[in-house]
């Protein structure tokens, strides 16, 4: 039976982890390579890097990070943040990323996903959707790290992304992100029902029950979390043991 995936996400800025886990045994808590290793050793099913480097001149740093991480990390590595072109995707894959997640550029240019899926295969193309509730039963897609609103309906956009060749959707609720009050279950459930590709739920995890809800109520194939793992509130192992005790199938 296919297991539900637990994916810790690391925010990387200028080649350094921000808000990283602060284990005593880590020599360098800001080193993404070490952090990824800790996560994969503790049972993470995948690792996600979100590059939040703001300035263009420092954008090259993510490639070095991915290169080093992939030499030591033998679970899938997804990298996103600031991916704009086929060339960006190509570079990340060549550095050892297994999947690339694309957000703003996919909204601006639907051909990018089509071309990327054709060239690299759907298996490595993840469309990241930042959505915010803008009306009753209506969620709009946001771009530029959640700063800009579009008129695009998130559910329709998920369907379009699927038909363009995305292999997965990484769905983040802008309303829930950072609140630790749980995923937007209504939104997650609507999208998982609307499409046939796997959905990774993101944004809002504060407790282990939230992870369970994302899978059981939201229908997500994978659940992504940052803070609860970063701050050591829970370990990956604890999360998996909890889910298992609630009859949610996970790899342990």
């Amino acid at each position, binding site marked *: *039976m*296919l*297991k*539900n*995936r637990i994916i810790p996400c690391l925010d990387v800025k200028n080649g350094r982890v921000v808000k990283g886990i602060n284990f005593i045994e880590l020599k360098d808590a800001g080193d993404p390579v070490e952090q990824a290793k800790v996560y*994969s050793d503790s049972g993470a*099913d995948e690792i996600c890097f979100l590059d939040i480097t703001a300035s263009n001149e420092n954008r090259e740093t993510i490639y070095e990070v991915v290169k080093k991480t*992939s*030499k*030591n990390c*033998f*679970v*899938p590595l997804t990298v996103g943040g600031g991916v704009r072109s086929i060339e960006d995707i190509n570079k990340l*894959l*060549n*550095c*050892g*990323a*297994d999947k690339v997640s694309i957000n703003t550029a996919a909204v601006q240019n639907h051909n990018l996903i089509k071309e990327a899926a*054709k*060239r*690299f*295969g*759907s*298996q*490595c193309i993840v469309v990241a959707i930042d959505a915010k509730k803008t009306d009753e039963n209506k969620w709009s897609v946001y771009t530029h790290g959640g700063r800009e609103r579009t008129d695009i309906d998130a559910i329709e956009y998920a369907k379009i992304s699927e038909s363009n060749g995305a*292999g*997965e959707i990484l769905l983040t609720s802008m309303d829930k992100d950072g609140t630790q009050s749980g995923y937007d279950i209504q939104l997650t459930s609507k999208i998982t029902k609307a499409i*046939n*590709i*796997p959905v990774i739920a993101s944004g809002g995890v504060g407790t282990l029950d939230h992870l369970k809800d994302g899978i059981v109520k939201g229908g997500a*194939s*994978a659940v992504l979390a940052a803070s609860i793992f970063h701050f050591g509130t829970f370990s990956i192992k604890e999360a998996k043991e909890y889910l298992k005790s609630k009859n949610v199938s996970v*790899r342990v």
Partner: protein
Amino acid sequence: MNVTIVDYKSGNISSVINSFQAVAQNNININVTEDLNQIKSSDKIVLPGQGSFKSCVDALNSISGLVDTLKDFALVNKKPLLGICVGLQMFADVGYEEAETKGLGWIPGKVSKIDNKNGKYKLPHIGWNEIEFMKNSKIYNGIENKSHMYFVHSYEFIPEDKSVISATVDYSTRVVCSIEKENLFGTQFHPEKSDKLGLQIIKNFINL
């Protein structure tokens, strides 16, 4: 010993390279090349494959002499060859992804889309799933039955002769996830991304 990962310019093979380099001992060289002479003189070949069946077959065919060289290596000289994901699928006679496409024809069978029971199962089949052994396979030395491996695919290899199947995985139906036929090995899952157990499989192949 020389282990060659065939770089036929299709898909992303960085993870395959990293994993083989991580487990290779001092006396083992991991080469990454499309050079026919280097492939011929290798002791073992790894044939990775990402993207569609058609794009991988097209890419193999676009390198003059490569298919014949691989065939000599695998079928005439019978030296160990490991196909990963689409690399395994290409052993078949024919594949139906994108368009009907002729495969290498090394193991009779076809590659068709996983039956997702009218959308009941998501495709691609992405994530960790338990493999179930159908027979002993040398690449599973030290691996327990029902171990988790990492999958990402929408198509499956259906061989005519079921005795080549070394393991299956449960996803809507029993999907073939590895084969062993004499010197030919193949995994539908990605050992290079299947954590320590995946590395063990790679080690087993190198140590054959």
